[in-house]
């Protein structure tokens, strides 16, 4: 049965349309600005793009409907709802979050999150277990994450002593390491930013680490050595050179 025509019912319809359009625009904007790489694994970006296009399409069709309804004097269709939110709240919430998202720039996780989550050179029991790893002949082609995966399979540090390394990541000043060490870390992503976890390796520097600020990205070239640092015998990179690099377009490794 059609409900009596009222401005509040019309307002609810407009709210739905705006919320849908805003979400479509938000998803497409994250993609076009490249910030979607901070949020998602690259494999799933297309899903977000498709959803963005679909939402803009759906919102567009409904926009025409609502404009027609606004102009005409037809009775408004009855608005059903599942009784979880009072009418209008669901859309208002979606619209508010989308508008906030449009002016928010997501930033890749850095040292603070890494320290909170605990940087390790091991993958603990409950972490997702990688099903493959690349066995490179040239050790300097191994990325930081490759090194950590290799260490997980065969953790004896002496096995790698003397091998050359060239790895990239951001710097963390871990309190338990002496002043001439820093941790070079990267986040690994499986699906979205919610499941990223940090891995890292200690880097032995020639000088104090104060010259190498936290969160700055570096390319480290050096040689693998075995040392006992912070009471633990582990694999350490003896650095020959540290080069400042800019944050990669895709900040997480997968």
């Amino acid at each position: 049965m059609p409900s009596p025509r009222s401005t509040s019912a019309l307002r609810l319809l407009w709210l739905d349309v705006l919320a849908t359009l805003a979400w479509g625009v938000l998803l497409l904007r994250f993609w076009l600005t490249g910030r979607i790489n901070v949020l998602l694994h690259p494999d799933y970006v297309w899903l977000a793009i498709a959803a963005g296009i679909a939402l803009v399409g759906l919102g567009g069709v409904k926009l025409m409907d609502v404009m027609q309804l606004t102009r005409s004097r037809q009775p408004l269709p009855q608005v059903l709802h599942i009784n979880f939110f009072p009418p209008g709240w669901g859309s208002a919430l979606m619209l508010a979050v989308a508008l906030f998202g449009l002016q928010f720039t997501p930033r890749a996780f850095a040292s603070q999150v890494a320290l909170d989550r605990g940087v390790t050179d091991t993958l603990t029991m409950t972490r997702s277990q990688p099903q493959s790893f690349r066995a490179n002949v040239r050790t300097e082609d191994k990325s930081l994450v490759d090194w950590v995966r290799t260490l997980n399979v065969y953790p004896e540090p002496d096995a790698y002593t003397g091998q050359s390394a060239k790895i990239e990541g951001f710097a963390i000043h871990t309190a338990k390491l002496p002043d001439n060490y820093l941790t070079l870390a990267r986040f690994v992503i499986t699906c979205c930013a919610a499941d990223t976890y940090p891995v890292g390796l200690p880097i032995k520097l020639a000088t104090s680490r104060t010259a190498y600020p936290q969160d700055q990205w570096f390319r480290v070239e050096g040689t693998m050595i075995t040392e006992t640092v912070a009471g633990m015998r582990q694999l350490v990179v003896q650095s020959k050179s540290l080069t400042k690099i800019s944050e990669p377009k895709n900040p997480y490794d997968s």
Partner: protein
Amino acid sequence: MVQWNSVLTLFFSLLVEAMPFLLLGVLFSSVLLMFVDERRLIAAVPKNALLAALLGSSIGFLFPVCECGNVPVARRLLVQGAPPAMAIGYLLAAPTVNPIVFWATWIAFRDQPELVFLRVGFSLLIAVIVACVFSTQADLRPLLQPAVARAMPATRGQKPKQNRADNPGADLLQSGTFLLGKAGAPLRLDGGGMQAAALVSNPVLAKPLPEKLRLMLDNMMQELRELGGILILGAAIASVLQVAIPREAVLSLGQGQITSILAMMVLAWVVSICSTVDSFFALSFASTFTSGSLLAFLVFGPMIDLKNIALLLSVFKGRAIAYIFILAAQLTFVLTLLVNLYVS
């Protein structure tokens, strides 16, 4: 400030990952609502309670709806004379045992494929067990809301033949017959059921196509705003919890074989996140919680949660909901504890 940015980045990452799946779920549920007549399916249900429960638990593959969409469908099934075992099997399993949820879970947990299969397996098992328990009650009506009970067929057991010509949505439901492995004669419950079907069956099916498409879009918008709102609340809770709770506290809770399962079940119940996207929510706990507890979240949440209790009350009396809740909770706990102890 850095923490605040992390919370927001997490929040938007969960939403951006979940939104496509929410949209897909809403699309499927709307298409099926508009084009499928579930009376066809009821006609093909076997008498055996176990088989009916199994069938009911598997039709999520045809009606891939999450736990908000399935309550109205289950109600229509009951009123149209579906055996209780089938309706309850459907109610509990459909939000999990369906292709969209399977795909979403696969994307979230592709590194732990056993979780994906165990989720489907456990959901089926629990749904079938609870459905069989309920089927021992010969007359379900004392457990239902009076309005639903009155609309149900007066007697069960008579299954006279019905014509199948009045069915516009036949194609998809052919698979329902196929699912049974035998193309039995289409049977339909008679008596009060027909009258009730006229009252509660899907009135949209008789409408012309343009009208149906318009109603489908309306339904999509409606589900999107309800479920989108809940998704936003769920994502907010998940991202704040992940950043705000001290890591040691989370780890001590999350690494305990029993505490982790209990914590995730409570969380699933409170957060009420849609089953299409709950695997992404669970993913944010994947590094700190045991596999069994993640499974408990994924199995228990879609069956019964804070949000759909309101919906369930439109079908069942409180007593029946309490039975379903207790049975489902205990079975989830025992099964996932076995996973924690013996599998992972």
